[in-house]
């Protein structure tokens, strides 16, 4: 469904509407009229990264508490994390607010009630991330890194031998990423076989042992906990600690995550 929407969104964009700017279709399937946005707010870390990748980072005037990449984003006004500070947001007078529909449907509705122009992006794979960056380049009329990302994606040579991979991003309980998540997409593209099916399951270590992963990707700061689990030595798997933000955020750094995974899987 999301893929379909994105196709529609890419087909639908760039229809010229005189004076009032151009029409773009977002991940809600909603047509949003946007006229050269100069004051932009992003309330999602991955979208903030995409705006920078689209070469429009200098147009951002406010971000969420969680937006800490790239470095420049840290200097921007913070608009909240668990709750959104609507007043501070409005006082920045943004002409465009970038958000996610799957994460913040209610916030989006509220922001529109308050008179903001909201555009949502919900890429679920690396390919969709690149498409979203390209779309942002069109919206901002900037030259960004979408072409470079596309080239890099095309030149990825997956690892051979289809090693069994297990990815966890929390150690107690074990939070894992399966084939249906965007991390599953990365592992598959890198030539690995994710041992889990569901997108974001909580699993028992016992189950992981029976699946006999050869490579364990650890996206948290407690690798010793993993090494200390019973049966770890007998499993004989290779443990790789990776940067959580690189993998968990469905943003442009997923490309780095993919290239890193290819190297780790060799």
């Amino acid at each position: 469904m999301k893929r379909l929407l994105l196709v529609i969104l890419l087909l639908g964009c760039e229809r010229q509407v005189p004076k009032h700017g151009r029409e773009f279709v977002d991940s809600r399937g909603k047509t949003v009229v946007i006229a050269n946005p100069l004051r932009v707010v992003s309330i999602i870390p991955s979208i903030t990264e995409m705006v920078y990748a689209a070469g429009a980072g200098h147009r951002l005037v406010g971000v969420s508490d969680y937006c800490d990449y790239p470095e420049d984003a840290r200097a921007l006004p913070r608009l909240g994390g668990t709750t959104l500070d609507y007043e501070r947001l409005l006082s920045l007078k943004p002409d465009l607010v970038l958000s996610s529909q799957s994460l913040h449907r209610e916030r989006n509705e509220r922001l529109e009630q308050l008179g903001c122009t909201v555009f949502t992006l919900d890429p679920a794979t690396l390919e969709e991330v690149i498409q979203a960056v390209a779309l942002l380049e069109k919206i901002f009329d900037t030259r960004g890194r979408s072409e470079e990302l596309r080239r890099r994606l095309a030149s990825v040579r997956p690892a051979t031998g289809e090693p069994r991979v297990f990815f966890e991003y929390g150690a107690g309980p074990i939070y894992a990423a399966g084939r249906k998540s965007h991390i599953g997409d990365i592992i598959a593209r890198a030539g690995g076989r994710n041992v889990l099916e569901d997108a974001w399951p909580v699993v028992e270590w016992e189950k992981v042992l029976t699946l006999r992963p050869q490579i364990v990707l650890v996206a948290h700061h407690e690798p010793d906990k993993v090494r200390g689990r019973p049966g770890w030595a007998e499993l004989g798997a290779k443990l790789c600690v990776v940067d959580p933000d690189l993998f968990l955020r469905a943003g442009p750094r997923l490309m780095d995550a993919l290239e890193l995974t290819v190297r780790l899987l060799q």
Partner: protein
Amino acid sequence: MRWIAALLVASLALLCASLMIGPAGLSMAQVMEGLMGGEHTTIVRELRLPRTLLGFAVGALLALAGGLYQTLFRNPLADPFVVGVSGGAALGAVIATVLEIPATNVFAFGGGLATMLVVYRLASTRQGLPVVNLLLAGFAVGTLAGALIAILLARRQNWERIMGVLMGHLSDATWARVAVTAPLLLVMFAVMWALSRRLDILTLGEEGAHGLGVDVERMKRALFFAATLATATAVSNCGIVGFVGLVAPHIARLLVGPRHAVFLPAALLCGGIFLTLADIGVRTVFPGVPLSAVAALVGAPFFVYLLRLRNR
């Protein structure tokens, strides 16, 4: 009466202060202008005004609920949380959030009411409704509701919104929420105020009240229902905020004494003042900190102070 007037003046002053304060840094003139329309009208009329009114109304509702529970159980430590109703209401609100149903109010009331009925059943004996039974049953059922919320949290869907319910906050205050809470507060206060003589008699003890011709069981049910409705409405519109229902009635009783005709309005105003202050704290000193945490930061030490005062 003097105290009621003083509390009213303090409430009005705080409500005005709450309108003036915010990250947009508007001057007093700009706020006045925003009230009439013009440049800052969205910030003043769509954000600050509903937030201020909702905060006050929720605080008042919780104080009223706390006061009623205390009268009902003749226990000064009773409040919406101790009897398990806020847990049940929160569970209802969380279920609505997980199922993506917008009728959070209805679900919260359903949850609160269901909790109340279960607690009532568990606590009932042939002789009536012993207070100890009620408090224990409330504790058990409230804990169960907490466990069910934890199960829903573990699915990690809508995590932030569930946390919003659990931690309490006013940043989603809208006129729609004010339109639910404020009239309910006024109606409930009017009804309870009209009943204040009977509430006074109820505090004498059940046998005494019965002797004076009050239908104690019916009165208890009415109180239970009203306090539950007040709690559920507060929880579904601003999440769980503790200590208001405990501290506000205590202060009110210290100021005006236990007679319900003066105690109820004083408790209501104290609750409103307490939560308005806490939210001003959230918007100035502690940005992003949950309302319940700020309320507890002020409420807990004060509560300990009250306890020591009583024991002296």
